[in-house]
């Protein structure tokens, strides 16, 4: 056998894990068609053989929003304000809960789907090679598509409210920045999901905690209530939850008022990038040989 020097004659080289970091983004780009098809598959196969079909996209967030409006808004009388209103504008509770729910659903769905990447696809991944990252990314896009459709419905309700004059908010130019917060939520969901996916390969226990942790997390995030409910002196601690600044910023962009502080926004971006990059690195380490363990 010749020495290492003639490695150049070969196109591909399969070697043991050396701890080197190759994210394989170029390879992932080569497989973008697959990402697209995976996303389409996830999205379109969900509502086959149902009577209501695509209506199911709207029913869950709609019902949750109604429940939130009744329970937290009307019975518990939680404020649906992130800060003391600057004028006489009050965001209607229904819209307030709806946007929060849609965004939270997006985040928690991406996280849950990503966390299950290895377990759900173990059979396929054990038989065929493709960039493993294609699966969670496709799932994230299919969840995004769902969220976009829901947001369109939200937009329609919002517009109807504004036009009919029963809603005391106006459309604001800050809306243009709204997609940024959606993108941020996606990255965070993916990042944390990837870390959990890697851990569940060896320790299935973590998979069981995810649902419970997400539920708890929901109540630590201003989705069912406005930020105003949180006592002033706890705000600093409360804002450590990276979803909170994203959520309040999203509502600010959406309604043109609310709570935005540059410091917290920067903190949320730092946290998001930390989780996302960290998740990608861990995932990259694990993907190569996870089929041996799972």
């Amino acid at each position: 056998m010749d020495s290492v020097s003639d490695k150049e004659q070969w196109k591909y080289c399969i070697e043991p894990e050396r701890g080197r970091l190759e994210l394989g983004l170029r390879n992932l780009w080569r497989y973008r068609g697959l990402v697209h098809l995976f996303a389409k598959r996830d999205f379109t196969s969900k509502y086959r053989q149902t009577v209501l079909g695509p209506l199911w996209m709207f029913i869950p967030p709609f019902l949750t929003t109604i429940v939130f409006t009744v329970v937290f808004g009307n019975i518990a009388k939680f404020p649906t304000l992130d800060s003391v209103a600057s004028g006489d504008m009050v965001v209607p509770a229904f819209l307030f809960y709806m946007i929060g729910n849609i965004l939270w659903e997006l985040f928690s769905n991406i996280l849950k789907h990503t966390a299950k990447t290895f377990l759900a696809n173990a059979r396929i991944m054990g038989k065929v090679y493709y960039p493993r990252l294609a699966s969670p990314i496709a799932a994230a896009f299919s969840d995004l598509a769902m969220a976009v459709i829901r947001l369109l419905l939200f937009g329609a309700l919002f517009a109807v409210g504004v036009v009919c004059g029963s809603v005391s908010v106006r459309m604001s130019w800050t809306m243009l920045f709204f997609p940024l917060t959606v993108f941020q939520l996606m990255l965070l969901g993916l990042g944390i999901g990837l870390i959990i996916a890697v851990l569940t390969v060896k320790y299935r226990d973590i998979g069981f905690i995810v649902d419970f942790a997400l539920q708890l997390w929901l109540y630590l995030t201003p989705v069912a209530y406005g930020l105003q409910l949180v006592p002033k002196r706890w705000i600093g601690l409360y804002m450590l939850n990276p979803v909170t600044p994203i959520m309040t910023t999203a509502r600010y962009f959406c309604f043109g008022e609310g709570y935005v502080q540059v410091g917290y926004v920067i903190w949320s971006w730092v946290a998001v990038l930390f989780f996302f990059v960290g998740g990608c690195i861990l995932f990259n380490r694990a993907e190569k040989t996870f089929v041996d363990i799972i």
Partner: protein
Amino acid sequence: MGDRMIRVEHVSKEYQLGVIGQKIMLDKADSPLGKRLTEHDLHEGRINDKGMFMALSDISFEVEAGETLGIIGRNGAGKSTLLKLLARITLPTVGRILLNGHVASMIEVGTGFHSELTGRENIYLKGAMLGMSERKIDQKLDEIVDFSECGQFLDTPVKRYSSGMYLKLGLSVAAYLDAEIVVMDEVLAVGDTAFQNKCIQKIKEMSESGRTILFVSHNMALIRSLCKRCIVLDQGKLKFDGKVEEAIRYYTSASFYMEQARELEQLERTPSHNPNRVACMTYIKILGRTRFAMREILRFMLRFRLLERVGQLCLRVGIWSADGTAAAISFVRLPNACEGENETYFRMDTSRLLPGKYSLELLLVDMDKSGLMVKLDALRDVIAFEILPSEDWPVYQMYKRDWGYVELPLFIE
């Protein structure tokens, strides 16, 4: 020709023994997998000093462009692990693999189909998974559909497909891959004969068009018809690399136990076999010669132990020919078997078997009233015998491969 396509350099693959993750399980001897492997494999030196199981150890070989390489070996020899390494599904522990082309794996062709999607959607999905672009699939869609014989069901969700159709569709997509290297693991084990022949034809075409193919199969006839060169894996080691006929001869002679008698108690049982052994075969002895002429009868003695009374104990004997196909089967009830040690003498009418080497597979089964059989103890390649060609019918020696293994008596009325 002459271009190297694949080079495998000193590749080894280790697997962790036992159940991973829980501390208690790390004690290998306590875990079921660890125990099953250790009994046999410590003996064979297949567990290394780190307590890891060596699925492959120090494998090296090269494959030229356009070559079809057969890979044979018994279950657990490391064939599938080797293919998984080549397909990048997992990485080797030591060594490296150099490739000069894209690898497409056809390991279990039906995987990757989504049951809610239609046949057409699945073709695209599967194609993309194997590295084909959407445009490429567009171009080849008609051919794929044509080949799969599933045209009229193309827009039906694949969950309504029969298992045969499912497989045909999977194979068809894979057959039209444009990868330079294709690895196949027992892809033709299922499907009807006509379709199988079509696939063999297709694989030959692929090979002629310059594709490099690695083909794993237990079916020696298939290996023989598709490959010129073949490697034999045994216990994770490369035991033979050379011409296909020699490889098959090597493989079959290695698993054929041509002795007069054999102790059976310590032999490794197949994994699927019931572990709380109600019955255990302990000893077999061929009475008379192990090589005998056509028209003669095989006599043997079998000792076995029964731990408890069994409803209806039966012995099933599979007769396997040297090319890896089942040649015949025998079955007998054992009404006199009792608890404890048994010694039974058998006489098997082998007079109609054609000349050649045969290996016996023995199964002790419990048959209930409805005819359902429960395996109590099973062993493959227990002992072998050889039937020598007789002077009056020398022709049987020459064409046996195409003629089957049994000669039925024919009389003029």
